[in-house]
């Protein structure tokens, strides 16, 4: 871990500030594991926590009432809680879950599809990463509908993100992914069930066997995708911790860490140390389940690529 002594940091210069957000849990974990994870989050230097099932509404280990209990516990611990809506909304259950999140006023909502944006009816919300906000006019449109924050598309490069941040409406808090496997695609089909030759409606909830997803490799053994039910992710793990201060300087106010079964809170600790000036910005060096790191999108190239910092 490249680290410089605190004494070497220029003390007089104010460090650029950013919030640390924990994205919604994208995997299907047993209830106990979910509860334990969020109990540990309560003590971690996380500022904002996104809660709720965004990938598949068949998943039911943690019921809505229990998500609300977790929300209350985290709020009591001083965290800002945001309830996330499902990304691909098609079934009646999907619609009901989306509307239930949008109907409550206790917590901020992350609107993950256009329907959720409508259901917020002008109340403040965070625009999720799949709303395809690629330029300032779309960001301004969302702000006009009530967006207080917005998560940039994961494929956006650093230069473009800087330009978007510079043009953001007053009061808009822009957020970007900095760590975790990248959510890349959604389908009506469940690929985990397909792998097990099961139908989606009788999937036996096999995704619970894969706490960080199920890796699909090329014929040459290169880990490529991660199957996570109806979601397809990168097999590589995004690591933009080295860019944390640069992001904050360009006006990205919130950095998102995506939960994994290991490493998540260590990364959060590193980001907090970077923010406090106790540690120089550097790649976290941490990945889940032996994954390779990636940061290609940031550099304007293929997302899978990794460019070590010079």
């Amino acid at each position, binding site marked *: 871990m490249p680290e410089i002594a605190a004494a070497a940091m220029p003390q007089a210069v104010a460090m650029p500030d950013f919030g640390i957000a924990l994205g919604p849990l994208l995997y299907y974990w047993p209830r106990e594991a979910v509860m334990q994870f969020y109990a540990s989050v309560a003590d971690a230097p996380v500022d904002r926590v996104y809660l709720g099932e965004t990938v598949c509404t068949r998943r039911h280990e943690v019921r809505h009432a229990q998500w609300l209990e977790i929300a209350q516990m985290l709020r009591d611990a001083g965290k800002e809680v945001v309830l996330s809506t499902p*990304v*691909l*909304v*098609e079934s009646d259950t999907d*619609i009901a879950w989306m509307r239930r999140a949008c109907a409550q006023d206790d917590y901020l909502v992350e609107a993950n*599809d*256009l*329907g959720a944006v*409508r*259901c917020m009816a002008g109340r403040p919300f965070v625009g999720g990463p*799949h709303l*395809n906000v*690629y*330029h*300032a*006019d*779309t*960001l*301004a*449109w*969302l702000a006009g509908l009530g967006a207080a924050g917005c998560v940039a*598309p*994961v*494929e956006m490069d650093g230069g*473009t993100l800087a*330009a*978007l941040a510079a*043009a953001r409406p007053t009061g808009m808090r822009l957020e970007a992914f900095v760590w975790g496997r*990248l959510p*890349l*695609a*959604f*389908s*009506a*089909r*469940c*690929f985990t*069930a*397909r792998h097990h030759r099961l*139908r*989606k409606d009788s999937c036996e909830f096999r995704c619970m066997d894969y706490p960080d997803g*199920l*890796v*699909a490799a*090329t*014929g*040459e053994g*290169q880990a*490529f*995708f991660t*199957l996570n039910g109806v979601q*397809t992710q*990168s097999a590589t793990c995004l690591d933009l911790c080295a860019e944390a201060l640069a992001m904050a300087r360009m006006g990205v106010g919130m950095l998102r860490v995506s939960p994994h079964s290991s490493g998540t809170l260590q990364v959060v600790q590193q980001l907090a140390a970077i923010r406090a000036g106790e540690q120089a910005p550097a790649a976290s060096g941490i990945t889940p389940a032996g994954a390779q790191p990636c940061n*290609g*999108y940031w550099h*304007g*190239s*293929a*997302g*899978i690529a990794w460019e070590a910092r010079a």
Partner: protein
Amino acid sequence: MALQHGADAVYLGLRDATNARNFGGLNFTEADIRTGVAEAHACGAEVLFAINTFAQMGAVAQWQRAVDAAADLGADAVIMADAGLMGYACERHPELRLHLSVQGSATHADAIELMRERFHIRRVVLPRVLSLAQIGKLARQTSVELEVFGFGSLCVMAEGRCLLSSYATGDSPNNKGVCSPAHAVRWTEQDGTMQARLSGILIDSYAPGEPAGYPTLCKGRFEVEGERGYVLEEPTSLNALSLLPALIDMGIAAIKIEGRQRSPRYVGDVVGVLRAAIDAACADPARFVPRQEWQSTLGRHAEGDQVTQGAYDRPWR
């Protein structure tokens, strides 16, 4: 070709990243378009302009110019996905009819209604993730016209929400109007085995004599838990011919054929079959049965020699 064989409307795009078929040799110059629009209108057909990618920060003016050009060149409608750009179209060209592209990912009534309320969209092209029952329900819930895919290549992912291509190559449908772009494709042969790569990543390999397909990412063969296969989707074509009476009964406004990046022969054959089938299904829906010769014509143009009704009947559900 499409007009001669009975299409009611044709899609076209400008020759740049403003549409989702930004491939070399495709699309039209403005002079071509002017002639084409006049020809279509003379046949009583409509011309729909596809400006269905997401404008990129720093280049938004290019997308706005495409909208201006569509209005100027006599577009009957513009099909779009980008909310910021739709706002521009509404403001500058209030008379221009807007359709929400499949890339707009509107999968349920609230999403469609938002775009109707904000941008007065008149039609939405539904993502290929919905079942027939879901489409029927949507048709009852919204006043916006529905357009569904009837034939062509099958996207297994929700359109507008798939970044697999940029993950491997840097270019995606959203940011560049391409998927698994040709510039990233490399074919190599090793010991008689044909390997198809995208940006160096092995997408598939074919034994001697095995027919090789274009290395579209989601249709490649990968290994999961030691098992090699089509992890996401087998190469197949969507064919909704037998569902036409049901779709017509629901009040579906248009059946879309995937047509660009295709040969004139494909366009003529597929449009001809769909025209005949739709006319037959409208005339006598109760007794409609797809004719064998229609199916064999469509079969000749199907990718991977297999056809499926995709999400409409959900055999995998």
